[in-house]
């Protein structure tokens, strides 16, 4: 069993309180950073670790930190993006609920590295219990002298605030989050300027995911190079995967990046296979925004290599035969699930959550939702599939923020891989409302790749 870095003490009773967390070696990274390291050394350590953003895009965190502009006399901010609302992803909520001090500790160390005197945790509005847990944890840390003025006698001051959001998915986009944090309508900003130059209140700002910030703690404790030894290639460290759908043991798992996908899905240590003895039909590997893959392509890449749970391996094959790591929201579908219905459901979500600022996303998501609804309820046409692909192409890449892409990819990939099932919904419309298409050939072994002479 691989070593856990984030969830090592998750099962210790009372780990959500300061005293127990401290007795298990908590806040050691704060002590180490503030007493023995300069802010630049902390940034250097994170760079060495090769940590990549855990929120979805996978941008190297250390690089992001080093891009932060540092003009004299201007405040800098660190904002933690806890607006986790991607369907299928629930790792940040788990982390904040059960081990809130890990996030607080990471926030202190990261704020010190960036020279932020005020930092914010922007939590999604629906997570009221987590907001109370975090506020209690902040109060405890403050009592113990880890927050406030002159932390541990190092002369470094930090105030940490929790800000509840209004419950909008779009506020997980970093510039929309900053707008919302400033008290405005959560519309994404047009970039450039990037938040590293002009973010919150026009000041240089870094926005990081909860898990990225929590991962700073083991990086500082053990050193960046030690952290980089875990994982494979450019995917270093451990990643929280929230497994859901038709798996036997749904839940949040901490895996070493590079774990074979088959092992993750079928070993008893992790998901434990598909529930009720059914067979796997499809997988959404990283939250609803990433392309969906049929079972055969998920377990093996197009070159018949075993697929690994890492940034590179999951995106092997590009969008034609690959997917993305995303935010780690792993959803498995068994043979009785309807891909058309699932795609419609995802699209309905994006239609509901589009901010309405730029036209392709505002109108296109609603249009796709209506077409998919028609298909699912047996009124579809054969031309609808091409229409959907075309509309998704018109949205993709033409919007201000990535929500347009996120709305387009699931639809385009579902039609790319499951076209038979969509067509069956048109040709057998009355049958389609009573039963499902079933597994069909989606788990068949992949054809041998052609030998290129």
């Amino acid at each position, binding site marked *: 069993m691989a070593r856990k870095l984030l969830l090592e003490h998750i099962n210790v009773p009372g780990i959500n309180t300061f005293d127990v967390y401290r007795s298990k070696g908590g806040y050691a990274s704060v002590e180490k950073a503030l007493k023995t390291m300069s802010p630049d050394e902390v940034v250097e350590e994170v760079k060495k670790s090769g940590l990549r953003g855990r929120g979805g895009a996978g941008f190297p965190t250390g690089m992001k930190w080093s891009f932060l502009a540092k003009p004299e006399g201007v405040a800098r901010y660190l904002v933690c993006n806890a607006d986790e609302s991607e369907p299928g992803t629930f790792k940040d909520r788990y982390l904040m609920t059960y081990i809130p001090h890990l996030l607080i500790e990471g926030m202190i160390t990261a704020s010190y590295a960036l020279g932020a005197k005020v930092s914010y945790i922007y939590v999604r509005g629906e997570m009221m219990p987590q907001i109370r847990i975090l506020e209690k944890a902040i109060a405890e840390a403050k009592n113990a002298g880890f927050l406030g003025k002159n932390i541990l006698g190092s002369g470094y001051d930090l105030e940490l605030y929790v800000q509840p959001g209004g419950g909008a998915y779009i506020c997980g986009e970093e510039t929309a989050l900053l707008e919302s944090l400033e008290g405005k309508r959560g519309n994404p900003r047009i970039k450039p300027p990037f938040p590293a130059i002009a973010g919150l209140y026009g000041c240089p700002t870094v926005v990081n995911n909860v898990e990225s910030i929590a991962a700073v703690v083991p990086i500082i404790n053990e050193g960046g190079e030690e952290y980089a030894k875990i994982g494979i290639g450019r995917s270093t460290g451990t990643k929280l995967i929230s497994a859901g759908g038709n798996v036997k043991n749904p839940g949040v798992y901490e895996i070493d990046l590079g774990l074979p996908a088959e092992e993750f899905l079928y070993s008893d240590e992790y998901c434990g296979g598909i529930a009720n003895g059914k067979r796997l039909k499809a997988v959404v590997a990283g939250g609803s925004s990433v392309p969906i893959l049929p079972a055969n392509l998920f377990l093996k890449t197009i070159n018949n290599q075993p697929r690994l749970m890492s940034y590179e391996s999951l995106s092997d094959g590009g969008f034609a035969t690959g997917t993305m790591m995303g935010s780690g929201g792993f959803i498995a579908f068994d043979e009785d699930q309807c891909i058309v219905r699932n795609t419609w459901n995802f699209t309905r979500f994006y239609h509901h*959550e589009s901010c309405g600022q*730029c036209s*392709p996303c*505002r*109108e296109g998501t609603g249009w796709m939702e209506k077409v998919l609804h028609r298909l699912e309820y047996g009124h579809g046409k054969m031309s609808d599939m091409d229409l959907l692909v075309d*509309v998704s192409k018109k949205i993709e890449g*033409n919007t201000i923020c990535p929500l347009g892409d996120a709305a387009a990819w699931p639809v385009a990939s579902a039609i790319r891989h499951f076209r038979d099932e969509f067509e069956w919904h048109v040709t057998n419309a009355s049958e389609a409302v009573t039963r499902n298409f079933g597994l069909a050939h989606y788990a068949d072994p992949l054809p041998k790749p052609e030998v290129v002479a």
Partner: protein
Amino acid sequence: MSVKVTIDGIAIEVEPGTSILNAARQIGGDIVPPAMCYYSKLKDSGGKCRTCLVKVSKGSEKDPRPMPKLVASCRTTVMDGMEVQNITSPEVIEARKGIVEMLLVNHPLDCPICDQAGECHLQDLGFEHGAVKTRYEFDRRTFEKIDIGDKIQLHMTRCILCYRCVFVANQLTEHRYHGILNRGDHSEISTYIQHAVDNDFSGNVIDVCPVGALTDKTFRFKNRVWFTKPVEAHRECDHKDCNGKVTLWYKGEEVLRVTARKDEYGEVEEFICNTCRFDKKKTSDWVIDGPRHVSHKSVISSNHYDFIPLPVVKSNPVLIEANKEQFERETRL
């Protein structure tokens, strides 16, 4: 110090910090991308409608890599040595066609009863860049008409959410009483519980609206714009921020409406106050400057010629007489 940018093969030197769209406007002609939400007189406008997307095939002299996605030309500043493709890129044409289709998905296309018809940017855009037929087969969203103030009517059904009126209210008036409610395709421009929009510059939201969502209640259903004759006029306005330079839209002797003077991109030259716009509708209130030049491409110019037609017929006396009558009729307005 100026930077050189090439748009569709035409090079121009512009000030640093100019947007691609404004550089293209300095060149002029067919290569100017259409803009539905950008308004050069309003700070922070643009970037939302995506009709002005262009392809940057060379980033700059220093970094010649092309930009990975199409960019909104109204919000992208030019770099030295940048090469931009607009109408020469099939990718841009295709994307723009898609955007126009998206904009029309929830637009009622009620041009025959819309007061904006003839000077509507969406009409022009659809005509130039759109497809012949829509593929959208569902109900369009509809809203009730609401009155915001006693002179302005808001018909949200036609709105394309360009946010221009919000910027006008933010930047020209002391208080903004209207804004965007809800999100996605449910979002609407509205006032808080039908609060009246009432201040001296509120009428400008009518001028900046690219479609017929915000209309002048003193002009609604009075006439089609192409039957009216635009004449430039001015008056001594006692409002400190208004210089009283307007366009009067005549039908016969009557002034049907007053608007600010608009340039070839449909942007007002200077904003005017509500007194000039709504209350001064007599010729005696104004000093006439002369006929307003309207581009020959605009439907508004279809019944007016600002040049005297040449006598085509020179030999037949009957036709010469008829021609004269025709000429008188044409120039009576």
